[in-house]
């Protein structure tokens, strides 16, 4: 089964996944019309800045067992049987924020959502784009990512590729480095900048 895989070291912090995600979870599902919607659709992937201002696309890991599901007071959080996606039923959610204290990644937000009940804030998080996937598309954040920080593939395939890349980069006369040179350079620059400011 394909899933969204995050390659944190590749993220350049461009945040393009965020509007793509918001658009995918809007009523009209087009960027231009989505920004005019009320309530405004909001992203469910959150690019945060790390210690060296490097980007990191933070999204729901769909944990098993899921702490948010165990702590949910109303049973609004459940696991989608087919895709193993952890979902929130907005009509059962009472916006109590119990899941906020359970999620070890801090990926749940609370606001009125275009796809939820009108006029009421609810807990909102990544749903693995189940609606898009059902239509044969890939998740919006992956489609928007230009640097390969988000991919949609079998977990085993991604693991094998990464293992091979690491092995090659360690061998003499190595081929491709694990990180593309441009991405590596950007990260080095960001780290030095933060070190300089500190010093």
């Amino acid at each position, binding site marked *: 089964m394909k899933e969204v895989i995050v390659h944190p070291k590749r993220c350049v912090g461009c945040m393009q996944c965020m509007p793509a995600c918001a658009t995918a979870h809007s009523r009209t599902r087009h960027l231009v019309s989505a920004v005019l919607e009320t309530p405004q659709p909001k992203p469910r992937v959150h690019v945060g800045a790390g210690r060296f201002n490097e980007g990191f696309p933070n999204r729901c890991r769909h944990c098993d067992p899921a702490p948010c599901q*165990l*702590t949910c007071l109303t049973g609004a959080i459940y696991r989608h049987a087919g895709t193993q996606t952890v979902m929130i039923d907005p009509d059962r959610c009472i916006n109590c924020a119990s899941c906020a204290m359970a999620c070890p*990644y801090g990926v749940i937000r609370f606001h009125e959502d275009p796809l939820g009940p009108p006029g009421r804030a609810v807990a909102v998080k990544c749903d693995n784009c189940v609606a898009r996937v059902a239509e044969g598309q890939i998740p919006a954040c992956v489609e928007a990512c230009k640097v390969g920080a988000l991919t949609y593939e079998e977990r085993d395939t991604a693991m094998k590729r990464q293992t091979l890349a690491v092995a090659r980069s360690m061998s003499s006369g190595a081929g491709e480095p694990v990180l593309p040179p441009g991405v590596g350079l950007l990260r080095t620059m960001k780290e030095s900048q933060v070190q300089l400011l500190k010093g």
Partner: protein
Amino acid sequence: MKYVILGNGIAGVCAAEAIRTLDLEGEIVMVGDETFLPYSRPMISYVLDGSEPHDKLPIRPADFYESMKIKPVLGQRAVSLDVENRRVQLADSTCIDYDRLLIATGADPRPLRAAHMDLGGIFYLRTESHVRQQVAALSTARRALVLGGGLVGLKAAYALLKRGLEVTLLITSGYPLSLQVDEIAGKMVLDELLRRGLKVLVGRSVRAFEGNGVVRAAVTDTGSRLPCDMVIIAKGVLPSRDFIPRQHIHVDLGVVVDDHLQTSAAGIHAAGDVAESVDISRGCRWVNALWPEAAVQGRIAGLNMAGRPVVYPGSMSRNVLRVYDLDVLTLGHANPGPEEGCRIVWSGGPGKGRYRSLVLKDDILVGAVLVNQVEQGGVLCALMENRVPLRLSTSRLMAPDFNFACLLP
């Protein structure tokens, strides 16, 4: 194998479900005081404030007992436990034998000792039946009195204010939520409620009630008379463990459990509000009577009972409260005494719209209070539960842009 589960709250329900993941054939008997379907106890305050209907309380389907092949014995409490003969006696004198027993009897409201407690309009806030009666009483109520400034008291006061009643809150300590949060956060909550019309009396308790059939006034220990037609008592809860023979099972405030949630008697486990486990942030035994803990403990106890040894890492206090425009999240040992050698750092406060307080013991986070912007609370909670030595400065942990990425190498 015959499993007997005492209690049909969330701990008992999660235990039964966990047993069924490993043992499809074993007999499960569930004894419950409440006859209602398994429901969300923390949600009753949402029913009281009118934001959710009563019929949304159940959290399991109507055929829960049948589909899980559980024999429910409802409307009954255990009155005695014979450890040697592995037998539980119920209030109606029937006896149930067991091979594995789970004590998940929960807790009952701490009773108030005052004269004329039998008057109508005086309630506890603990069960769906309590809230059903309270909602029915709302139509004739105008002036409410809430006793207790803890979480339940505050939620009750907030709910009744939202329902348009005139509400007076009586608290014995100097500020509300003194067990959960520090003084600054407590005052922020209080200010918000005062701004919305709540009346608060500090340092007073009720000695007696007056009325003719229904309550009309409360008399305080200072002798003053507070007119009211509805009273909600919220003075905390006490573990329901009177039936447990102390010569066989170690009972402190709650039933003491080990790291597999087994009591001091073999084959008997305990979970939920009745269990006393090791508190991760305090480093000592503690009864953390909380819904999320009860759910996790029930699940782990069930797995252990069905024969799969699973370690329970310990409990931790945690709460989240939303009153009007204020979100309050508290984790762990959030309000330690000065003698405990903790370092407390804080930022923000009243008027700033945001408050953060972190409690550290050496370089381990043991407590936190967040007022507003609580989304990253779970990240802090995970740091506390796993006792991760902090590498990040406390100012970064408290900054508005703190997020999971800050913890990456």
